[in-house]
């Protein structure tokens, strides 16, 4: 996110950072607690993590270790119960739902486990939906979508619906969608779990190339150790703690 004017209003102004030259993510003592009937469940236990601007981090751990919670907090989907979270220089620790919606729209990109493209939109429209959800920029967004599709090798598939694309192509469209808003941080949630090994490795190569060429930070949530070779470093989690 290099457009300073995109970070005005909704509480962004006072947090407006010097963009592009600080860590993409700073998480200090981030804690997420869910109250239960007589007790509470600690989903994230004082997690500390820093992801530099062009760094690619693999977040590894068993189911229930807190990877998804950490990812959700870093992506502005959940608010931490306590601790400090800074995304792209914007302290989002105390942001409300409306401000977090804007964080997700402007600072973060997501690639979901099951790809989750909008089934009735073409590949190009799936990218443009990001623009339609926020401040519409029109022609610049269309140019960016075309450019991303070109770079992702999908120019000839721009008018295809997700159902007409292969698994790998759908994954590439999802990556394009995550990059549409020129994010500070892209969160990949098990990006290869739905793909066979060969395709999974190819997709990871593509993710690494795309992130590195653009200098965008990424967190790849995975339980597959083979994925870690594509990342700069691995962060392990267990029982809600970053090890």
């Amino acid at each position, binding site marked *: 996110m290099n457009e300073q004017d995109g970070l005005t209003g909704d509480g962004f102004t006072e947090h407006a950072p010097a963009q592009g030259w600080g860590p993409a993510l700073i998480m200090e003592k981030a804690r*997420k607690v869910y109250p239960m009937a007589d007790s509470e469940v600690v*989903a*994230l236990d004082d997690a500390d993590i820093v992801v530099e601007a062009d760094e690619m981090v693999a977040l590894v751990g068993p189911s*229930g*270790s*807190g*990877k*998804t*919670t950490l*990812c*959700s907090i870093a*992506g502005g*989907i*959940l608010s931490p119960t306590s601790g400090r979270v800074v995304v792209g220089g914007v302290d989002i620790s105390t942001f409300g739902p*409306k401000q977090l*919606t*804007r964080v*997700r*729209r*402007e600072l973060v990109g*997501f690639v*979901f*486990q099951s790809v*989750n493209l*909008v*089934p*009735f*939109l073409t590949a190009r*429209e799936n990218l443009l*939906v*990001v623009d*339609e*959800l*926020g401040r519409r920029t029109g022609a610049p967004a269309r140019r960016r979508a075309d450019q991303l599709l070109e770079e992702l090798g999908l120019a000839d598939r721009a008018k295809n619906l997700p159902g007409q694309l292969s698994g790998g192509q759908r994954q590439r469209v999802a990556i394009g*969608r995550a990059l549409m*808003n020129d994010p500070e941080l892209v*969160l990949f*949630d*098990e990006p290869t779990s739905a793909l066979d090994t060969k395709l999974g490795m190819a997709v990871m190569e593509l993710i690494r190339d795309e992130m590195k060429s653009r200098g965008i930070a990424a967190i790849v949530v995975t339980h597959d150790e083979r994925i870690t070779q594509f990342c700069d470093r691995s962060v392990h989690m267990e029982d*809600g703690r970053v090890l």
Partner: protein
Amino acid sequence: MKLALRELRRQPGRFAAAGMILTLIALLLMFLGGLLDGLIRSSTGAVRALDADVLVFSSSAENAFLRSRVEPALRATVDAVDGVEQTAGIGVLQFGARMPDSDPRDLLDIALFGTELPLQSVDALPGEGEVLADESLRQRGVTEGMVLELGPGRSPVTVVGFTKDTSYLGQAALWASPQTWREVLGENRPDQLLGPDVFQALLVRLAPGSDAAAVAERIDEATGAATASLTVIAAADTLPGVQEQQATFNQIIGVTVAIAIVVVALFFALLTIERAGLYGVLKAIGAESRSLFGGLVLQAVVLTTLSCGIAAVAAVGLDLAIPPGSIPLRISALRLITSLVYLLVAAVVGCAFSLRRVLRVDPASAIGSSS
């Protein structure tokens, strides 16, 4: 919003069932409304056609011509009221009429009006022994120049022309001079024969600039409440059965709208449940609940408008296909628009039931469980 419209365009099958049900509901609504309009029109046409502003009945008549009597002295009092420019007597009789060479039991239901004032659409009253006939009688075979025999006394009257939209309580009206009316009355209902210059009711034309409701009040004051005066529009509404018809049909229309609300609510609630995953993803990438719900409402509005459009074409087709005079159906643009508005309101209200569900969709659901 664009997203919602694209879904409608690209996945029309998904909305087909709801669209079909809404089309049938819209057609039912338009048909019921058309029947109501047709019934009201066939009940009140004669009164609405009167070229007067106020109708004066005797106070004990409860606004019914047959029970009302206005004596010359009472008429003189009305004539003197401020704002009254002219008064004219009027009376009506309902009975059967025979066409020449028809079966003796094949009677036309008619209402014979005797009036001192010609109708809005007619320049002059017919001559003695002559009548103007409501156009609906053409479908029964009545033609200009035909001699009809009225009532058990078989009083002959000659049809010298036709008038449009002048039915009275579902019966075709015949319009005659007071003299002809009195003669027919005397020959068929001697017990109801009125004295000279006595009429069942009075028509009042107002002086320019006068307010009809205010003059009606002044007339009743001047006659010491011996009269019950109504504007012609109000008089049409108080004709026997009119309000009952309106109330009955409006209740049925209300229930139909309620059913439409339920249909829209159920359909879009199901659609919202089905879309929960997609909404989760869209919220995760920055969609606001407001815009997702707005898209839902837009889809309901477009679907309802399309359904109403198809139903309107079907309703007009039905109107054209049904033989005139068989069913009192009247499909008007106003009724079609009113039905559309009712259903649009139903669509928005129906969608409102899904609002909470849309608000509750958690963007965290897009990236698996939140641990």
